[in-house]
């Protein structure tokens, strides 16, 4: 359970087993607690006061609350709603930022390799290879978001959390990112919060439907979209509310 302040609980009674190397989408109307749930997975909620949690989240059978947040967040990367590359850093520095922030002392060629492979993974390398040492502010929104994904990938995390990563992008950039996610799931476990039902239908393998802080349904995406078992899920998917 996750609660803001004394008694208003935002998310409760969520039990789910997230599948490895798959995209799990979390859907639901705004305010249903999907972002809150996502942020609990890498303990981002602890940045803010007055948020209480109860219960257990495990990564490979190990409780995330027994790890330090620094360690946990290297295993569970995150991509945010709006592209947020560090404006004071070059593209190169942005990709390697995780290592630099964590005080890892890497040789130049190790860094080069990480930057190149991460940018390759998000399909950005050819577009920016001549301007790696420039600041990223000339990039388009979609490119910036892919840079942020590269930044998260640089650590080779096990899980990547994505909080509506395409909500600030145009349709073309969105399509590119969706293709990228499908490619990335071979190497990573992706948990994707989205308010966009068709996006969930297009790219996710499994889907959760949350409503008023509760997990209503969690199933294969195909099954949920064709034959939902809960009437509230059906109502949402057919546009009755949300």
């Amino acid at each position, binding site marked *: 359970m996750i609660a803001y302040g004394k008694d208003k609980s935002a998310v409760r009674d969520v039990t789910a087993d997230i599948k490895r190397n798959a995209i799990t989408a979390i859907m639901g109307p705004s305010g249903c607690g999907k972002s809150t749930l996502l942020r609990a997975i890498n303990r981002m909620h602890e940045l803010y006061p007055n948020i209480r949690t109860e219960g257990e989240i495990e990564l490979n059978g190990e409780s995330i609350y027994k790890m330090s*947040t620094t360690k*946990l967040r290297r295993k569970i990367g995150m991509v*945010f709603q709006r592209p947020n590359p*560090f404006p004071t850093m070059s593209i190169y520095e942005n990709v390697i*930022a995780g290592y630099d*922030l964590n005080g890892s002392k890497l040789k130049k060629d190790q860094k080069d390799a990480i930057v190149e492979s991460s940018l390759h993974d998000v399909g950005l390398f050819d577009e920016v290879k001549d301007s790696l040492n420039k600041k990223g502010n000339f990039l388009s929104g979609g490119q910036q978001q892919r840079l*942020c994904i590269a*930044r998260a990938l640089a650590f080779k995390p096990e899980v990547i959390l994505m909080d509506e990563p395409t909500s600030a992008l145009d349709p073309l950039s969105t399509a590119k990112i969706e293709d990228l996610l499908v490619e990335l799931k071979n190497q990573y476990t992706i948990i994707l919060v989205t308010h966009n039902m068709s996006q969930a239908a297009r790219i996710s393998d499994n889907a959760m439907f949350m409503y008023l802080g509760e997990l209503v349904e969690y199933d294969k995406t195909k099954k949920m979209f064709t034959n939902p078992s809960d009437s509230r899920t059906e109502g949402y998917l057919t546009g009755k509310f949300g």
Partner: protein
Amino acid sequence: MKSEKITKLILLIASVIILLIFSGMAWSMVKGAIPAFGKFGFFGFIFSTEWNPTEDHEVYGAMPFIAGTLITSLLALIICFPLSFSTSLFIAEYFRKKRIAVVLGTLVDLLAGVPSIVYGLWGFYTIRPLIASLGFEGQGFGIFTSGLILAIMIIPYATSISNEIISMVPNELKEAAYSLGATRLEVITSVIIPNSRSGLVAGYILALGRALGETMAVTMLIGNANIIPKGLFSPGNSMASVIANQFGEADGLKLSALIAIGLLLFAVTALVNATGKMIIRKFA
């Protein structure tokens, strides 16, 4: 629409008052300073280290005061920085929007309300004996004591600007760094500071501008020796305090020399403040 034109004209005329005050100030001070500059030469006056008001042997040079002002102000800035920057982090980052941050902010604001002369008294009766008891010469008067009090006096200005600048750093950048496993300290050093650097610099430039012109507290603590200070604990004098101190009995050439020092102080503070404001405006 005739009345509209008249109203706009009145507004325009009022704005001219600022131009008049400004040019009038420059004009009056240049005119008042001419005898001193004429006698000793512009650079001769600035760089001379002698200040001798004895009749018939009158020699006036501004260097001891320029040196005293610059050294005490820079010292103040150095002492002020860690204190006000920590306070800003406390208020605008660590305990942002919490009750304790509001209390701290109010107390820092109160520092700005204390009149200069009260700082001087407190420095004289509390800080000076402390410094003297450390075993330094000169009963605790001097550069260090003045710099310390100046530092306290400029803290509220530096802090309130850095508070604003630090709280402007977008939350999403901080979150991005946290999501990469950064600790709070690492977020501060690699996200907050780089993203607010020019604003912070401007804040400290403006605080320096304050320190340069402070008069009473410095007058009461610097020791009023018209020499270039020989060390951190040596007595000296500043531009503002020599004006306040020696103005009472001044006329003729001495008055002109004091006005010339006032003109220099005006020019330096105007330059420092204009620079600070320019950076802030670009930043915002």
